[in-house]
Each structure stands twice: as structure tokens, then as C-alpha cells.
């Protein structure tokens, strides 16, 4: 197995997907701003989609299935981004901060 | 000025220097920057009758970052002087200054004893490369000023000299 042949191995994609997922989770916990968390969540979604795509490419009898799932994830992600951002802006308007802790504090 | 500092950065290589100078001299982009009366003549120079574009110098850029030459066209008041200085500082090297009109050269007709409002000449603020006297100078004089500046950059003059008759 050559290092140049990695693109044909399912496990590599799974590992990358896992890494993206892990980075996303790390970001979710690490970032303190709502937008930062949104960015991390996009990474998590990207990891999940990559899994779908990889399985679809290597295992599924019908390769369209994974692609369609990914497309759906994109649609949901776009909707999620739009909603999340309008929430963020609304929150910001009300509390003049997008820091998660500030929001929590002000609610009480 | 301006040239020296750049030359130290680039390895001295005569043909290259010459090429760079040629490029710069033929692509002098002025700043959209008029202070007073002379600015109108500056606009007239860019207009159809005189057409500064023939020398590639009609690209008036409104942002100092993209300009090569600052045509100080008009009276610099003391209130304006810091802003003019800032604009000059914001221009990237190599840069040149043309003082157009008597006000920019020496304060012109607005100099009198006890004046409180104007800077007596652009060269009090920063080095000036070409002076164009007149109140205001005719557009031909501004073109002549651009040609003078090209001569200064490249070291020789490509265009015939026109003697006034």
C-alpha cells in the first residue's frame, strides 16, 4: 500500500471524518462565542457528511443514497445557519454580546 | 525621493532599474485630490481637450494607497495641512508630488503679513518634485509638469519641448 494510494481506502476517509468530528466537538467546547460554536457545529456536520459519502462510495449498492443524504445535510445546515445567525443577531441586539456566558447571566 | 529607499531593497541591476523607471514614469496615477481653484484646471486637463490619458496618467485613484503622484492643486490651509500630510504618508513608495499653482508652491496671493490660515507652500510639508506656477496654471502646464516628472524619473525626456510664442 503506497502513501499515494490512500484515496482509495475507506478507512482513511473514516479517519478524516472522525478527526473533523473531533475537532468540531473540541471547538464546540472550546469556543465561547455563539458564532464560534456555530462554526464548530458546521465542522461536525462536515464530518458526518464525509462518512455518508465514504460509505456510499465504497459500500452501498446504490451510490446515490449517500450523496442525497449529504445534500440533505447541506440543506439542513444552511437552514440551521440562517436560523442560528438570526438568533445570534437577535441575542446580540438584546444583550449587546454574543458571549454565551453573558447571555446565560442576563437571562436570570 | 522614494526611489532611493526602493533601490536599496532591490538588487541594483541597471537594466532592471531602467525598466522599472520606464514603467513608473509611464504610469503615473494621480490622486483624486483637489484643494481649490487649480483642481478645476486639473479636471480640465483630464478632459477631452487636453486628455492626460495619452500619457497613461488619467487613472485618478480616490484612494491614496493606489496613487503614485499627488497633485497638490490649491491652497493648503493650516487646518488641512495634517490631512494632506496623512494622505502623503498613506501613499506607498515610490511616490511623487507635483505642486500645482502658486498657492501650492508658496501660498500664492494669500500670503500677507500676519496671515493666520495657510501653509506657505507644499514643500513645507513634504518634498515636492515638480512645481507648476500659475494662478491657475493652464492645463498645458500640468501636462508639462507630468512630462517633467517623467523626465525626472527616467532621466531623459521623450517629448519635444514647446516654447511659448
Amino acid at each position, binding site marked *: 500500500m503506497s502513501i499515494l494510494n490512500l484515496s482509495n481506502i475507506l478507512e482513511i476517509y473514516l479517519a478524516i471524518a472522525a478527526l473533523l468530528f473531533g475537532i468540531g466537538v473540541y471547538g464546540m467546547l472550546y469556543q465561547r462565542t455563539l458564532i464560534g460554536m456555530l462554526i464548530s457545529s458546521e465542522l461536525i456536520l462536515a464530518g458526518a457528511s464525509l462518512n455518508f459519502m465514504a460509505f456510499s462510495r465504497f459500500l452501498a449498492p446504490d451510490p446515490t443514497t449517500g450523496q442525497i443524504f449529504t445534500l440533505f445535510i447541506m440543506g439542513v445546515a444552511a437552514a440551521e445557519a440562517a436560523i442560528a445567525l438570526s438568533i445570534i443577531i437577535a441575542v446580540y441586539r438584546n444583550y*449587546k454580546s454574543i458571549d454565551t456566558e453573558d447571555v446565560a447571566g442576563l437571562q436570570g | 525621493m522614494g526611489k532611493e529607499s526602493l533601490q536599496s531593497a532591490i538588487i541594483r541591476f541597471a537594466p532592471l532599474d531602467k525598466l522599472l523607471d520606464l514603467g513608473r514614469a509611464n504610469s503615473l496615477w494621480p*490622486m*483624486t*485630490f*483637489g*484643494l*481649490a*481653484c487649480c*483642481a*478645476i*484646471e486639473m*479636471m*480640465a486637463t483630464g*478632459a*477631452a*481637450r487636453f486628455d492626460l490619458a495619452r500619457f497613461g496618467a488619467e487613472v485618478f485613484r*480616490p484612494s491614496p494607497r493606489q496613487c503614485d503622484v499627488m497633485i497638490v492643486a*490649491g*491652497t493648503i*490651509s493650516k*487646518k*488641512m495641512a495634517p*490631512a*494632506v500630510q496623512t*494622505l502623503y504618508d498613506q501613499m506607498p513608495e515610490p511616490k511623487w508630488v507635483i505642486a500645482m499653482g502658486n498657492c501650492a508652491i508658496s501660498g500664492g*496671493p*494669500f500670503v*500677507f*503679513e*500676519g*496671515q*493666520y*490660515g*495657510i501653509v506657505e507652500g507644499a514643500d513645507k510639508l513634504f518634498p515636492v518634485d515638480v512645481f507648476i506656477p500659475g*494662478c*491657475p496654471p*493652464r492645463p498645458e502646464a500640468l501636462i508639462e509638469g507630468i512630462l517633467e516628472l517623467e523626465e525626472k524619473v527616467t532621466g531623459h525626456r521623450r517629448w519635444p519641448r514647446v516654447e511659448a510664442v
Partner: protein
Amino acid sequence: MNDLARSQNQETFVLNLGPQHPATHGVLRVKLTMDGEYVVHAEPVLGYVHRMHEKMGENRTWAQFMPNTARLDYLGALSYNHGYVKVVEQAMGIEVPERAEYLRVITVELNRIASHLLWYGAFVLDLGGFTPLLYAFDDREHVLDLLESVTGSRLTFCYFRFGGLYNDVDDNFVGGARAFIKRLRRRLPDYHNLVTKNIILIKRLKDVGVLSAEMCRKYGATGPVLRGSGVDYDVRRNEPYSVYPELDFEVPVYGEGDSMARYMVRMDEIEQCMRIVEQALDKLPEGPVVAEKVPKILKPPPGDYYSAVEAARGTFGIRIVSDGTNTPYRMKLRSPTFSNLSLFGEASRGMLLPDALALMGSLDLVIPEIDR
């Protein structure tokens, strides 16, 4: 300019237009408080070309102040020449020969055409159209050629003298002026087709920057700005001077008060200027161009005198105070754009940035005249 400093209220921010900004026609600074692209508050900051004209008036003799008047409003220098010689002649009781008065009117109106042409170009440039500026300049060059052939300069004319003119004109000038008017008559339809009727321009100017007549009165706005708001006032007709009473012209008035109305007033004024010049050329009498009894050293009787003329931008008023010596004691220059601009702060409230700049362009600013 480089810091993104936000004001106290987080929703708004301060945008500093100028002092060097393409839209301000020179060096005017406007502090804009913006909410997004909406102007919340606009505060013009003046004085960047303050050239001490009023102080210089006190330091120079009456005759020596002449070149200064040309540099106040360099686009309509002859109107200012006219205002100044008029007030001094009024104080001294100098009678000006008729030919000189006719020539004054002709040159002033030609100068007004040049000024309006430049405004037309610059205004469309503010709105993003570049080509009309160059067409206007093309025509303007012809006026300037004419004026240069009599006055010797292209911009800062210093042509009028107390009691008359610097020198007489020749037949070439008369013929040239007629030819120019013919040429401009041919060109104006192109201007209108290219710009006035353009849907983009109409959309940008119609109902934008509406100034009410009352607002103009409160701020002392004059000239095309006032006439664009439906007030029929023109110094040339309401307070006749020179030979204007003998000439037949209309004062264009538009009632809408929006930028389009101000635009139309100026465009119509170009046509009226051409009518005036034509009539004046027809009626141009023979005779001397300088009054005979003009004292060598002027010493107007003590007292203060006021006089106003209609400059291209509005009423140019000049108040002189003489103490009977050969230098003015006080010289107050009332420039029209100073008052016209002062309403910008109130008028631009709540407007979009491009619309506010269109409004500013339609006020026809010449900054050195404001700053003096």
C-alpha cells in the same frame, strides 16, 4: 479613517467623509453618524480651505481686493467680480457706461453657463456617470476660450474694474459667443437624452432630498436650491441691477423641492442664460467701457454698504464698511453655498448614503466659497 471606532450607541457608527473625499468637491469634511447605510446625523465640518479673504480685505486697497473675488467662487468668478465692483460703485456713486454693463452681463452669463456645465458634469459624476462630465467639459472649453480671449484667464477672471472693464471686446468675441450659443443649443438635447431622461438618474433623483420652501427660508438658502423648492426669487429680477431689467428672461422654478427639481432649474437656467446673452449681444451699444470720472485712489465715504448679485449658486451678498480710507474697514462676504450647505445636516437625516451624497451634489458646493 483607519479605526473602526464605534460610537457609544453600538447600532450606529461614525463615517468620516473627507476632508479628502471624491464626493465633497474639494475639501469638505462631513461627519456622518450612520445606522448601516442610513444617515442618522450629518455634520459638515468647514474651514479646510479658509483663505482669509475677509482679513485680506482689510489689508488691501479697494482695487487690490479684486483678484480675491475671483478666487471665492472660482467657477463663477465674474459674478463675484460684479458683486464687488457693484457695491463699491454704489458707494462711490460711479456711473458705469452702458456698453460696459452689457459686456458685464454677457460675460457673467457666459460664466454662469460654464459654471452650470461644470456642475452638471460633477453632479452626474457624483451619481457615478463619468462621460457627461467630459461632454460638459468639452462645451465648457468653448466658453472658456471665449472668456479667455477677453479676460486673459480661464478660471479666476479679474476682468471688471470700478467704473467699467479691464478692456473692450472685439468682433471675434461677439461672433464667437453667437457660435457658442448655437453649438450649445445643439448639444443640450443630447445632455437631456443622455442624462435627464435616463431612468436610473430619475430613480435616483425623484423625490430624493426634498427641501421645503419653509426650510429654505429658515436656512437662508438661495439660488437654484431655493428655486427648486418652488420659491420664485432671483436677484436679477427681484432686485434688478446692471442692465437686467432691459433683458427678457424667465426664472425657472420647480416646486417639487427634490434633487431632480434643482437639477432641472440649473438645466433650464443654462437656456435662459443663452437667451440673455443673445439679447445682450443684439443690444450691445457702442461706446467706452470705462467710466470717465473714476478717482485714481478710491476712498468710499464712511458708512456701510450692502449689495447682492445673483451668482451661479445663489445670492452673493457683500457688505463693506468703509472708514473713508483707501482700504476697507470691514468686508463681509455672504456666500450662497454657506447657507445652502447649512441645511444639509437637517435635510439629510434619515437618508441613504448615496441619496445624501446626491443631495449634497445638487446643492452645487464650491468649498472655497464656503470657507472664504
